[in-house]
């Protein structure tokens, strides 16, 4: 297993074309250690989300190189993207749960992407992680009947249930009040530590900074500070 599951080298990214073309990411060089919790900060428009989507196989690499779990993403095809995405866990700012599926069913989707198989075991695994996140009594609720914090915890369960090697989260606490936001990140961290997961969280939330192993700050698409704690 690689020591650095995420590496970037000379990474640039542009939006638009012709005269309207703007550069959002400038010459990013980065190595993230396995099992660490990294927080990505910076003002609005500094390129945090763009960087996260480049790392997370959600955008094609235009210039430079990203090595994810030992695979070069520059020039990678859709099939490679799809198979790498299955080894990641995403947590979005909005919970993005499927409104027609119960909490358990939403979590099951995180397992079924790897193939179906023993349904009873998958169900047990989904129930287990929902229990770890304090949702044992809510597991058969539809998202419409859950609070914002509970929904985001279901989203965390969905991202973590398949034991991803990397978890990428973009402002997972933005839609939550302070307490539930703190709880969600706390859970993300403790579950990640227990499983050796590499976690990258984009956030503005100062209350969660103390939990990070490393804080990287972006400004105008460049890394302006990088501190280990």
């Amino acid at each position: 297993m690689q020591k650095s599951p995420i590496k970037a080298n000379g990474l640039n990214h542009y939006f638009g074309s012709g005269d309207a073309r703007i550069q959002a990411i400038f010459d990013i060089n980065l190595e993230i250690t396995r099992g660490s919790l990294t927080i990505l900060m910076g003002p609005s428009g500094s390129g945090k989300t763009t960087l996260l989507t480049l790392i997370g196989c959600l955008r094609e690499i235009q210039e430079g190189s990203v090595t994810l779990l030992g695979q070069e993403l520059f020039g990678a095809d859709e099939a490679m993207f799809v198979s790498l995405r299955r080894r990641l866990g995403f947590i979005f700012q909005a919970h993005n749960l499927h409104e027609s599926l119960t909490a358990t069913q939403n979590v099951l989707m995180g397992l079924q992407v790897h193939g179906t198989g023993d349904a009873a075991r998958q169900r047990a695994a989904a129930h287990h992680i929902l229990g770890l996140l304090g949702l044992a009594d809510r597991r058969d609720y539809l998202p419409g009947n859950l609070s914002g914090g509970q929904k985001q915890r279901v989203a965390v369960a969905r991202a973590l249930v398949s034991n991803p090697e990397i978890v990428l989260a973009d402002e997972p606490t933005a839609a939550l009040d302070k307490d539930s936001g703190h709880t969600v990140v706390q859970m993300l961290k403790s579950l990640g530590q227990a499983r050796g997961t590499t976690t990258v969280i984009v956030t503005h939330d100062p209350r969660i900074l103390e939990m990070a192993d490393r804080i990287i700050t972006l400004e105008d698409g460049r890394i302006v500070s990088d501190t280990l704690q």
Partner: protein
Amino acid sequence: MSRLLTFLFGRLPIGWLQLTHSRGRFVAAVAGVAFANLLVFMQLGIMGALNTSTVAPYAMLNADIILSSEDGNTLTDGGHIPRVRMFQALGVAGVRDATPLFIGNLPFTLEDGTSVSLLSFGLNVAKPAFTNPGIAAHLDRLSLESTALLDEDTRGMPASVIADLQAGGQYSFETGGNTLTAIGTMKVGGGFLADGMMMMSDQTFLRVFPKRSSGAPNHILIRTDDGVSVTSVISRLEAALPAGNLRIQTMAGSAQSDKAYMSTERPTGIIFGFGVFMGILVGLVIVYQVLSTDVADHLREYATFKAMGFGQPFFLGIVFEEAIILAVFGFIPGFLVSVGLYNALVAVTGLPVAMEASRAVLVFLGTLTACSLSGAVATRRLANADPADLF
């Protein structure tokens, strides 16, 4: 249901859960498919009745080959042929017997003053082998002058008259200056073809149709010897009989071409065909609307699934799952209501409208195909689900 589908697909039945989550839309979609099914079933039912009516008179007859005039359209709508063809045919090897068949329309005024027309068949009553057993049993009585068998479904005929006839009574009536006496009934089921039908001897026929001549029947029926192939007799007939305004067909072939004529060359057939087309179109549009709105409404969820690593086949699977669910759930009420309406139609019009298993299967398969097609078009919208837009 959800459990059954989970078992069938080996995954969560996302399509089912998604469709049934917005109950109102699901009901509307199912109602739309059911309505389209109903349209198609009604058109096909009436078209089927038209076909059944068209060929119903064939069931009265019992022959292998029929000689007709070439310019005729159907059994009951055509010209005459010379009776001499019958004598020529009798000389051909393999022909066991032949008899002329006369067909004409008799006007008849009901007791309430409305006039209907009775499609009348005149046959040689000395040859019962040329009719079905039900009619053959009455043939010797038809040799009495001016007697006839009356169609028990004759429109406007009082039920008491029919019941009385069936009980052995008689019923005399005026037509075109002649008196005819019905001495029994027969069942034909040709609702679209005529208000009613009659079977009589050729002698009676020629009396009530004074303008017709015994030398010019409408058709000549031929029965072949046992064990000879009908097609070989037909080729021999074709060689032996003078060409020109003569068509030689098997009875089944003649019935088939009558059906083809009625459904493709007559306005009624074309109108019903158009109705079927409209029904299919309505179904296609409704299902497409529902599925593509559903895809559009769930783009965010689909994008999330894409980010999680689900590939294109998974999404296509969801859309087709929905298409098939709509097809099945729409077909069931569409089918049941159609059967009800068929029965109502039979009760009101007496047309031979019936649900055939083959039609039900065909419409179901058509519904599946149409729904899948709509689904296939709707999946184009999936391309809009871009996981990079999620953050």
